[in-house]
């Protein structure tokens, strides 16, 4: 281990008065201390997740037997999961989650990319006005327009529909903001060349600019899917049927007083609902982390 080689706020400054051996010992001690602290923090961060996983395979009589016995003694990998599937339509919830997230994402990309391009690369008089609206929209979370949207959706018969679940999110001002920043660094010469070649602005957006913006699109997709897979507020308001419930809503409904004492299958259900995003994250960590970082706003 050569931690000192890495420039960092924690790295040691070699001090002349210390012998090399002494420095090594101090270095090792520091290393141990840092890892100890990190592992302690990890217990807090990963504890509940591990608890969820181990409890989901514990037989009912073990769950309360010993308060802090982490590992199951007689693991039952199937029972709690099949119970969870039997008592709630989990697959339906997840399918709904996929449909809603995909629908939202596709329309968000279709509406925001051209607008962002127009703001970044096209000169037209309305641009400052549109951009001001974008900045204003950035500050308004869904909870603000929720009441009128609900009343309007009731009038339009959009409650309890997929469209009702998705429509309020069809435009992401944040996507416009993000893509605009990204497109601005795209070389103007290439766009001019494309124009000279006779490409329409439409073709320029989708065939010239977008392919180079893949990192931004991936980042935004991660952000959007994470946000809408996990959203509770809006589904809670517009949906009252299992057939349309998204995963958080389904799980929230499932958690009633009586089924609530069946911890094993509760934990199994929680595991299943969290699994898709966690697995996606573990598979594509770099894109996820980059996505969330780039899209800092949450």
């Amino acid at each position: 281990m050569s931690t000192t080689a890495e420039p960092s706020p924690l790295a040691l400054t070699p001090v002349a008065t210390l012998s090399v051996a002494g420095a090594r010992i101090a270095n090792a001690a520091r290393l141990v201390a840092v890892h100890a602290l990190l592992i302690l923090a990890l217990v807090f961060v990963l504890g509940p997740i591990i608890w969820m996983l181990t409890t989901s395979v514990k037989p009912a009589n073990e769950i309360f037997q010993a308060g802090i016995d982490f590992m199951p003694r007689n693991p039952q990998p199937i029972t709690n999961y099949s119970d969870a599937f039997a008592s709630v339509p989990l697959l339906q919830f997840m399918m709904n989650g996929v449909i809603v997230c995909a629908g939202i994402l596709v329309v968000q990309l279709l509406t925001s990319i051209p607008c962002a391009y127009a703001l970044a690369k096209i000169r037209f008089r309305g641009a400052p006005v549109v951009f001001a609206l974008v900045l204003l929209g950035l500050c308004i979370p869904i909870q603000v327009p929720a009441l009128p949207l609900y009343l309007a959706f009731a009038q339009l018969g959009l409650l309890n529909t997929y469209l009702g679940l998705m429509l309020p999110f069809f435009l992401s001002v944040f996507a416009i903001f993000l893509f605009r920043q990204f497109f601005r660094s795209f070389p103007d010469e290439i766009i001019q060349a494309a124009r000279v070649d006779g490409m329409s602005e439409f073709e320029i957006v989708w065939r010239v600019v977008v392919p180079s913006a893949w990192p931004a699109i991936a980042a935004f997709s991660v952000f959007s899917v994470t946000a809408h897979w996990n959203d509770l507020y809006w589904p809670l308001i517009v949906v009252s049927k299992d057939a349309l419930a998204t995963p958080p809503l389904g799980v929230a409904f499932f958690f009633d007083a009586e089924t609530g004492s069946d911890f094993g299958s509760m934990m199994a259900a929680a595991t299943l609902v969290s699994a898709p995003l966690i697995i996606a994250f573990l598979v594509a960590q770099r894109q996820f982390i980059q996505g969330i970082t780039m899209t800092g706003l949450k």
Partner: protein
Amino acid sequence: MALAADRREAPAPAAPSGIARQERVEAASGYLFALPAALLMLAIILGPSAVVIAMSFTNYELGAIDWGWIGLGNYGEMLSDRTFWRSMRNTFVYVLIVVPSSVLLGLAIAIMVQSRIRARRFYEVAFFLPVTTTLVAMAIVWSFVLHSRIGPVNAFLQLLGFEAVGFFTDPDTVLFSLALIGIWQLVGFNMILFIAGLSSIPRDLYDAAAVDGADGWLDRFLRVTWPMLGPTTMFVVVTTCITAFKVFDTVVVLTDGGPLGASEVLLHSIYLEGFQYFRIGYASALTVAFLVFILVFSLVQAWVIDRNVHYR
């Protein structure tokens, strides 16, 4: 708003012939591209938000046939409503617990993780994991882990000789327990933002500081890291404030505002008044109060982004 005006790029040099025509085509497609987004924005964000503000001056209740303008009546009621003040207080206490804890913890972890070499990736992924979890599902897990009587955390506390804690059932504790879940989900997110900030600090600054006699990590932290992280820190603080201010999911799933209203928060009050008791007018006034606070946070954020951009 300054972002729009001062940082637009200079017009690209255009070809000498057919300039006017090309500009017209360009402008036309500009409007065309911006139109769907602008219409949607008016229809689903700005329009409804304006309607909320208008409704906050009415006594409209869902389904009511006769209703009218009552001026500032709802705001008057709000100011004398015990529940409103309680949820404001609770929301702010929640924010005041979550923001400093998750920011400082995120920073500390970022500093420790960033200087690792082989283990860095592992720590980043592990700490980030909660960010990707479904909060509602994890809230249920937490309700079990922190059960007042039969939860593992209390079993552990009792093993150490402490009294069992009513994490979600003691009015003095419940906000802290909800905050704990909030911190849990935010730490990894803040850590990643800080790591990004740390990575952009030029290494020669540390060398220069060493030449100036800064030795010991605290010295280096205070002289180089902390000042250089300024913009990142501001950004993280504001983002965390907005997220914390919107606390809702855990309250709905775990406490329903109880016990004794000790976890009643602003969004939950709005939800109850608007969607449970159908008092749309009053719920709109509460929403306007919510919006005001979010706007304040957002303005600070816009200002921070602005400064942040200048920095680079």
